[in-house]
């Protein structure tokens, strides 16, 4: 199943999550090689987001285990997983609408420093993250909007800010849930370019329905269907797989 060339940074064993009888993620064995870009695809409701929620501690598994860099993180809370170097973005844009872009970055950069526990200090101490915050904004092309409220951004810009936030956490493993969903062609290409740049020195797992994105970025593709892994391999191998064609296009095309 796995290419096995790179040592795994993430490994799940028989990972399962049920919601009152309905199994959204069903006995998933997933191995992500360090330094790879890995696409997770599958029809709507396949369990991709649920799997991300399990990996990042937003949901606890019904059974199975998750190891990150050899460490068992099964059932850990997000606030303990994030500092280990595992960050995520959300499928549905999820920001603090009234905060400025720079304030978003300051928060992300301050996370894990302990500075944010200090209720007796002036908020101005967050100013020390100004330069690094601007760098991150620059990276995603939002530097000129640093002082605007996030709520005033266009959809594509919000997705870009999501990326910048996840990057500011300096994750070793980055999980992106549909980074290009709802974007126009131009923004999609910019995002592909951005992910290609940011992949250096880290591992990326992303969900996307856009096969152009998957084809241009992924070293390896995992196809999920009804909570189970249907196929895994390179983009070309998976695309030629009959079970995958059936899953995507229905019986008649098989």
């Amino acid at each position, binding site marked *: 199943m796995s290419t096995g060339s790179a040592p795994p940074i993430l490994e799940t064993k028989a990972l399962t999550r049920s919601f009152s009888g309905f199994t959204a993620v069903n006995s998933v064995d997933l191995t992500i090689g360090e330094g790879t870009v890995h696409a997770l695809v599958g029809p709507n409701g396949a369990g991709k987001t649920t799997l991300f929620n399990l990996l*990042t501690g*937003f949901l606890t598994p019904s059974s199975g285990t998750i190891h990150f860099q050899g460490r068992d993180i099964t059932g850990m*809370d*997000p*606030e303990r997983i*994030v*500092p280990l170097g595992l*960050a*995520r973005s*959300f499928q*549905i844009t*999820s*920001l*603090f*609408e*009234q*905060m*400025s872009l720079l*304030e978003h970055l*300051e*928060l*992300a950069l*301050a*996370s*894990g420093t302990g*500075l*944010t*526990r*200090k*209720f*007796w*200090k*002036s*908020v101005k*101490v*967050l100013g020390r993250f100004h330069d690094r915050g601007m760098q991150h904004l620059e990276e995603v092309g939002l530097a000129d909007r640093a*002082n605007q*409220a996030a709520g005033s951004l266009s959809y594509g810009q919000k997705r870009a800010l999501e990326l910048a*936030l996840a990057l500011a*956490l300096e994750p070793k493993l980055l999980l992106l849930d549909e980074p290009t969903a709802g974007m126009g062609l131009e923004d999609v290409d910019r995002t592909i370019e951005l992910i290609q740049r940011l992949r250096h020195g880290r591992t990326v797992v992303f969900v996307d329905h856009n096969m152009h994105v998957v084809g241009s970025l992924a070293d390896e593709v995992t196809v999920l269907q009804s909570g189970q892994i249907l196929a895994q391999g390179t983009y070309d191998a998976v695309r030629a797989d009959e079970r995958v064609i059936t899953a995507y296009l229905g019986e008649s095309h098989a």
Partner: protein
Amino acid sequence: MSEHLVGTSHLETAATAAPERRERAWARPLYLLLALLLACALPWFIYPPIALDILCWGLFAISVDLLLGYTGLLSFGHAAFWGSSAYITGIVAIETGMPFPVAILLGALAAMVIAVPTGWLAVRSTGIYFAMVTLAFAQMLYFVANRASGLTGGENGLQGIPRPFFGMELIETEAFYFYYAALPLIILGCFIAWRTVHSPFGRVLLAIRDNPARARALGFDVEGYKIVVFVISAGIAGVAGGVFSSGHGFASLNDLMWTTSGKAVLITVLGGIGTLWGAMVGSGILVTLEDYLTTLGFEGIGIVTGTMFIVIVLLFRRGIWGSVQQAWHWALGKARLRWG
């Protein structure tokens, strides 16, 4: 994704982190000075015990606003902290004769201690369920205080609380002078609330209020932050309750009643959620109105204040102070356009 409070979801909160308010450098010290002058002048115009009530209820409502406006948590059991501090302050003053500020600070400390398990349990739920857990705790405390009549005086309340202050008789006996002796404690409470809101910690609170899931994904221990701000808020409520019982010379079961929690929430909403100082304005209006109606011998005070509440909430979504601020910024903006 974002959790809205069931009862107040249509109300706007004025607290934003965005640097839209670029006040001039002299503005803040000037406002502060004006507020201080107003606080000092108050007992010259208003019957001193009522002036003190305004400060106490205002500070109490500020503690509620810290949760409601800046963290997105509606506590409907804050009487637990106001009331427990009222009693502890009284018991300490009666039993030890320590100076009243010490008694009040001990009362506030007790309120914070009680807030630890309360908060620990309450933050596990959100929205209306959070309100219900806090209410349940307050009701439990009410029940306990009623039973422990040996300590609390039960139905009769705790009578004759002294306010020892180094033998300074005017302060110990006259409301006018006591007002000034207690003012620094109220200011301390306000300062702690202000400092918390404008700290890195406060920034995380706003993030939690606006999008708790996002805050978690950034690595913030959302429940931990909520517990800490809950305890800080309880301490501030405790200072207010302690000054209140010291000033009146008694503590009663009324201080622990759900109506007391409700009044604090009402004042907060009236003044403007997420405005902090709006709570003082709301308190000034509500307390003087109640006092005025009482002196008239009016029976249905609740009907009048309730009606006023509904009208203001419907007309001014940001509350009184929030609307004043909005109008002020609008006028400033206009003036800048015209005069440059």
